[in-house]
């Protein structure tokens, strides 16, 4: 008897693919025989555009890669350029960066939690998670002036100093947030329907995860201890006491547990950083490279001229190549910058974590049911802006 497989097309306009991902699924009944992701529906040419701007100007593109996570993207890019230009960042700026990045991680994980639960039919979680996400975004907006795409980090520091009001807001949030995580966990962690939808689904083993280049919570859920914050510390992460949660089975449920733990750890890091935030400048002292403070620009003619010079002409780093990476909520986000000695990057390469995490998706869902595809996509937490660039 001849058997035929049915091919169904999922996306690019599909509510559960978290953007414009298209999947071609070959089905044997309801079982997936082969899955082929088609990406690139949001390819905007960021790597090319980065080569046409000066180092300061190219910063704005980084926000719009993983748009749930603008500040960490800013940081990864700034770290790369600071490495290239040999700039030492003052401790205060490093702490501000850590606070903002961890706040952004909380916001990104909450977005994931809400949408992932919504995909699996638990709608209440969305409203709970967005309640706190709005609070985080309010804090971020208070200091940076924007909700999603702050472009707040600068090469050599941050755009402006934090004030006591910011510290107060963050402290309030940090004190309250652990209770809120408990609330989410009562809804899901022991929920029998949730467990049936997630336990044992979308499994990927340790070795395979490493071979696929998977990073972030998805890798850690498979039991691999790799967190850029611990392995290659940047921006003073070595000052803080936190642990890296690991999963055992590498399934959707473990990824959920790992991310819930990460929320608590991020909260710990923020509370340590906000208590221990040192006094001092928030920008490095490197007048050839770093933009002057905004207050000076408005009062001091020399600073104004310098602002114009750097903003328009840029600066010329030495001829070199650097790679710097951060632990973004999705995984290792890296920037590989090749400089040819001019004011524009010669090669502006982004190492996108979601891209490689998604490449493991066919391996995770082969042999599973169609309904599990949704659960698995949600658990990888992809952002198409970053995959397609």
């Amino acid at each position, binding site marked *: 008897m001849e058997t035929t497989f049915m091919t169904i097309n999922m996306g690019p306009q599909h509510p559960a693919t978290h953007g414009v991902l298209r999947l071609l699924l070959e089905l044997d009944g309801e079982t997936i025989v082969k899955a082929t992701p088609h*990406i*690139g529906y949001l*390819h905007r*040419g960021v*790597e*090319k*555009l980065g*080569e*046409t701007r000066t180092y300061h100007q190219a910063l704005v593109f980084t926000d719009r890669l993983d748009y749930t996570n603008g500040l960490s993207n800013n940081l990864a890019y700034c770290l790369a350029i600071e*490495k*290239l230009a*040999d700039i030492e960042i003052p401790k205060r700026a490093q702490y501000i960066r850590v606070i903002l990045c961890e706040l952004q991680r909380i916001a990104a994980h909450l977005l994931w939690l809400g949408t992932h639960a919504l995909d699996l039919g638990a709608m209440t979680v969305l409203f709970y998670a967005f309640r706190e996400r709005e609070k985080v975004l309010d804090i971020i907006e208070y200091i940076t002036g924007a909700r999603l795409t702050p472009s707040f980090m600068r090469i050599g520091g941050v755009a402006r100093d934090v004030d006591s009001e910011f510290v107060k807001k963050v402290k309030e949030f940090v004190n309250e947030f652990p209770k809120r995580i408990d609330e989410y966990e009562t809804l899901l962690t022991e929920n029998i329907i949730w467990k049936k939808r997630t336990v044992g689904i979308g499994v990927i083993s340790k070795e*395979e995860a*490493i*071979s*696929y*280049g998977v990073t972030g919570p998805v890798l850690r859920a498979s039991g*691999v201890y*790799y967190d850029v914050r611990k*392995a*290659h510390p940047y921006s003073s992460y070595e000052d803080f006491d936190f642990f890296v949660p690991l999963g055992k089975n590498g399934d959707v449920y473990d990824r959920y547990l790992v991310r819930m733990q990460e929320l608590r750890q991020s909260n710990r890091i923020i509370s340590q950083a906000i208590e221990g935030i040192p006094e001092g400048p928030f920008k490095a002292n490197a007048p050839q490279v770093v933009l002057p403070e905004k207050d000076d620009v408005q009062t001091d003619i020399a600073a104004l001229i310098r602002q114009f010079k750097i903003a328009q002409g840029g600066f010329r780093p030495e001829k*070199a*190549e*650097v*790679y710097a*990476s951060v632990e973004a909520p999705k995984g*290792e986000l*890296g920037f*590989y910058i*090749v400089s040819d000695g001019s004011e524009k990057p*010669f*090669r502006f*390469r982004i*190492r996108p974590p979601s*891209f*490689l995490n998604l*490449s*493991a998706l066919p*391996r995770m869902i082969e042999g599973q049911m169609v309904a599990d595809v949704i659960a698995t996509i949600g658990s990888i937490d992809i952002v198409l802006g970053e995959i*397609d*660039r």
Partner: protein
Amino acid sequence: MISDKLDKIIKNFGTYIAAIKEEKGERTILVKPEAHKELLRFLRYDEEMSYDMLIDLCGVDYLGENPRFEVVYLLRSMRDGDRLRVKVRLNGEDEIETVSDLWRAADWLERETYDMFGIRFRNHPDLRRILLSDDFSGHPLRKDFPAEGFDFDKPFEVKLEEEI
């Protein structure tokens, strides 16, 4: 530890290594294209090396230089926690052996490099465009490709499948 690794690499591949440099705390090996696959296989599977994660793979276009294209591999050893960058300048033609059988990650990364630079990877299981549509002409990250494309000034016309 790391210098031991470098010594062993030099011992095994001395004649094929064009340069080893260390700048800004990052180690780079420039290897000749004849031996790049063997070197990477060695780095991947040798007991002492165990660079089991391919963090990144990308191309660089040095227009005007000969050879023109460079492929960059960034490796990480999960056991030892160190990173190593391997670069290879392509010989005359825009072709190089695939490493997708060593690391699964290379599958999509090589497709992307093909899409963006037109570098063909020999023996790649499924080498086609990944980000751009199949009917796109040119490879945008080449230095002779304008950032806004060739038909930027013309009004954009979209055609549905049945109209084509």
